């Protein structure tokens, strides 16, 4: 059976167990160790899907764990940033060495995003939880629709690179393992890309979502970066953006090791496997799995935020 088939079967199953366990949270009979074990199982699968889907772990983790597990959203968002960061750090070395991720492309975008992510994290910790939860639900559903509707292109046409992108040396070459071709790439609309990354950083910090969900479309559709380079560089960018936001949460005390560590371990192991599969699995299949998960998680976050199903 193909790896993506396994994922599409196992992940909904693992998530199906979570609400049942969450329902049982009020029962004192549930021992504490059930939660780290459940988190490890869910995040291991999320780690694989996140790297393959180029969405980062946080965008799936925060609405799913915030919606179906008993932890306060402050801790879930802090953990979301840390595990998105861990997944990106874990997959980064292989992607950088292969040339699929580009340091020169990532650095300017990451600088803008990391500054705004700090302000996003401060805003997120200051707002009332129902407001953040409701906004999170709307955002996740919007991202799912965006992913469903968007038509990413493997190799966008960039007839003329813009001046800023050319001056920053935002270009490169990678080996497409599927076609066994060397692919040269360059960028356009760099100023717009930088502005959009400022917004992405703010939202990543505010909701603890990581940033891959937005990085990939901006790199691919706006700046004209090939899809594989976009997905790979997205991880590098979010490893920087999430670092700055994560420190805000850690320094505020929003770090619960029993929530964070099993999640990080799960997502890092999953991301290692995802990093190896990234050049071989079909992007379209992964996209469907990710969109389905986001629709469920977004609806749950919205229902919780509006007090419909708490």
């Amino acid at each position, binding site marked *: 059976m193909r790896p993506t088939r396994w994922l599409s079967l196992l992940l909904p199953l693992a998530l199906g167990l979570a609400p049942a366990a969450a329902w049982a949270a009020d029962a004192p009979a*549930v021992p504490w160790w059930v939660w780290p074990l459940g988190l490890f199982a869910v995040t291991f699968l999320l780690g694989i899907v996140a790297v393959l889907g180029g969405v980062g772990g946080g965008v799936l983790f925060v609405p799913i764990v915030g919606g179906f597990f008993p932890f306060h959203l402050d801790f879930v968002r802090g953990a979301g940033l840390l595990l998105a960061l*861990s997944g990106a750090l874990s997959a980064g070395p292989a992607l950088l060495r292969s040339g*699929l991720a580009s340091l020169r492309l990532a650095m300017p975008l990451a600088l803008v995003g990391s500054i705004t992510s*700090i302000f996003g994290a*401060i805003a997120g910790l200051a707002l009332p939880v129902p407001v953040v939860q409701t906004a999170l639900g709307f955002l996740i559903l919007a991202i799912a629709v965006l992913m469903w509707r968007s038509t990413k292109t493997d190799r966008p046409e960039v007839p003329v690179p813009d001046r800023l992108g050319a001056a920053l040396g935002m270009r490169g070459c990678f080996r497409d393992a599927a076609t066994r071709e060397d692919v040269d790439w360059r960028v356009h609309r760099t100023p717009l890309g930088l502005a959009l990354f400022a917004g992405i950083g703010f939202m990543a910090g505010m909701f603890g979502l990581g940033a891959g969900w937005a990085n990939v479309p901006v790199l691919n559709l706006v700046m004209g970066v090939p899809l594989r380079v976009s997905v790979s560089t997205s991880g590098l960018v979010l490893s920087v953006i999430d670092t700055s936001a994560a420190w805000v949460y850690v320094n505020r005390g929003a770090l619960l*090791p029993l929530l964070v560590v099993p999640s990080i371990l799960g997502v890092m192991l999953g991301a290692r496997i995802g990093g190896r599969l990234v050049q071989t699995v079909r992007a379209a299949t992964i996209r469907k799995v990710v969109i389905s998960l986001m629709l469920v998680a977004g609806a749950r976050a919205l229902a919780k935020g509006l007090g419909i199903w708490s």
Partner: protein
Amino acid sequence: MDERDYASPEQRLYAAWLDAGTKLGFVALVITFFIHVFELVPPGIALEHLPLYWHLPVEEFLRMTGAPKGWAWIARLGEGDLLNFVGVAILGLVTVVCYLRVLPRFLRAPDRVFAAICIAEVLVLLAAALHLVGTGH
């Protein structure tokens, strides 16, 4: 073609340090987590008591449990649950180390723009890490 042809020297250097730093953080996380969950070192908050507090907003959680803010955890590394902060801190600082490692390459090139971006990013990350921003509520 060798994979080295597709990655610049500074990119390979960044990857090497990122790899080492992430592995170090990962190992620290695993070791300290097992120390925590098996209570090899007594925790500040007993594991069986945690479910009473983890649904609370962070400010209330800190008030009820006496858990630390900022870098105060360093002074309390004798508590098993706070040992986990070591691995988290390594993962949070690995990007800073990678940037500092490639900075001399950009300075030698000379590539002033990317050297400036490098320095600016290190300052931003350190400001966040050292609790110089986001201290209010």
